[in-house]
């Protein structure tokens, strides 16, 4: 207990991440008077939805809503109930102790009784030659940021999920032609997104194919492809390549401290948000290798907030009992 006594202030809960999971956890914990601190990230506040356009499947917005607007609404909602939202990065965590320590990018350390990890996921890279070198020079992970630069050009999207379809459809606003390269013969995307992409005249599917190399001098000019069925090789001349092949959970900050699943996500107990460490909870994409939706992340943020509330209530009862016991012993 001496360690705790020297600490200026121990917060009830620090939430790391500011996507739908982080902000929903903030709304709930703020309304529970737990005065949450949200480390929203210095340049990543709002999370992945900040780079999207129309969100049509978040319930309650019958006409759809722009991703950035949805996230700014969530932030404002959390602030309204008193959440302390900081555009800062957590750089180091010490989670395996009763009072957790969170080092900040700006210097300084926060102490908290509980932590919610809502760090989301990061775009997966293809891992082929040329991809890194030409990143930002034709290779992109953000159609809404970079589509503008490919007016009247032929470009390619890799992937078969909803994100890939959304990117491809968005890119048809600018590009003259959008190839969608997919490893299989069928899309993973939802029916509505697949139908829209297939109906778009500018989109052409290249099935059963994977990119083996990104080529170009200083900027992308060609892709090398391999057929996944017969192994035959071919090339495709494009000036841009948008990679949308999925995401990996962002666990670098804490992967050595708690248990991960085989898929690399944070392991939680059943349908709770409880990780392998007491007082440490997870929410959103970081624990979810399958669903990865704004609404499931939001729901998961709510679960984490309620678990934190219960954990802190129980911890304070234990503390009170211990204090009482300590006081009664000398007498």
């Amino acid at each position, binding site marked *: 207990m001496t360690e705790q006594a020297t600490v200026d202030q121990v917060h009830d809960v620090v939430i790391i991440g500011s996507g739908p999971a982080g902000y929903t956890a903030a709304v709930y914990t703020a309304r529970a008077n737990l005065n949450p601190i949200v480390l929203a990230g210095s340049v*990543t506040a*709002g999370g992945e939805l900040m780079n999207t356009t129309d969100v049509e499947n978040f319930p309650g917005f019958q006409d759809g809503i722009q991703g950035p607007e949805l996230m700014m609404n969530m932030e404002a909602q959390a602030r309204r109930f008193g959440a302390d939202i900081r555009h800062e990065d957590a750089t180091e965590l010490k989670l395996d102790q009763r009072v957790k320590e969170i080092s900040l990018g700006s210097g300084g350390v926060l102490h908290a009784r509980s932590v919610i990890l809502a760090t989301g996921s990061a775009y997966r890279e293809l891992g082929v030659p040329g991809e890194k070198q030409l990143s*930002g*020079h034709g290779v992109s992970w953000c159609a809404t940021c970079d589509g*503008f630069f490919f007016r009247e050009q032929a470009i390619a999207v890799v992937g078969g999920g909803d994100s890939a379809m959304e990117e491809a459809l968005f890119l048809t606003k600018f590009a003259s032609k959008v190839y969608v390269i997919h490893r299989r013969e069928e899309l993973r995307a939802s029916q509505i997104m697949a139908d829209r992409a297939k109906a778009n005249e500018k989109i052409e599917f290249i099935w059963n194919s994977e990119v083996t190399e990104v080529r170009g001098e*200083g900027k992308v000019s060609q892709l090398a492809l391999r057929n996944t069925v017969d192994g035959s090789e071919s090339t495709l001349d494009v000036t841009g390549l948008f990679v949308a092949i999925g995401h990996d959970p962002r666990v670098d900050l804490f992967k050595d401290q708690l248990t991960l699943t085989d898929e690399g996500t944070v392991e939680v107990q059943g349908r709770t948000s409880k990780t392998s460490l007491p007082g440490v909870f997870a929410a959103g994409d970081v624990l979810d290798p399958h669903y990865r939706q704004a609404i499931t992340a939001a729901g998961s943020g709510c679960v984490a907030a309620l678990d934190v509330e219960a954990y802190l209530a129980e911890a304070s009862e234990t503390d009170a009992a211990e204090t009482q016991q300590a006081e009664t012993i000398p007498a």
Partner: protein
Amino acid sequence: MSELKAVTDSSFEDDVLKAEKPVLVDFWAEWCGPCRALGPELEKLAAEHEQIEVVKLNVDENPATAAKYGITSIPAVFGFKGGEHVKSSIGAKPKPALEEEFADLLG
């Protein structure tokens, strides 16, 4: 912390290429979410490093300069010294990461 100076296609030569100090140019656009996140980080960096100039260029309104430097991804921060493009950084990054990447210009 003040708003970064906006440069244009027509002022680029005077404001950037002929500038006495090294210049960081933030290529950005209204519709780019990460660009909005990067802005405040660059403003902080500018406030702390008087030996350089930090300016912004709207790629929508100034396509010629964006095309000249082959911008295909924003936000992009390009470093200029003595009229030469010497260093680039692509994507929204926190101030410490930018300081590291442009350490040569920050002196």
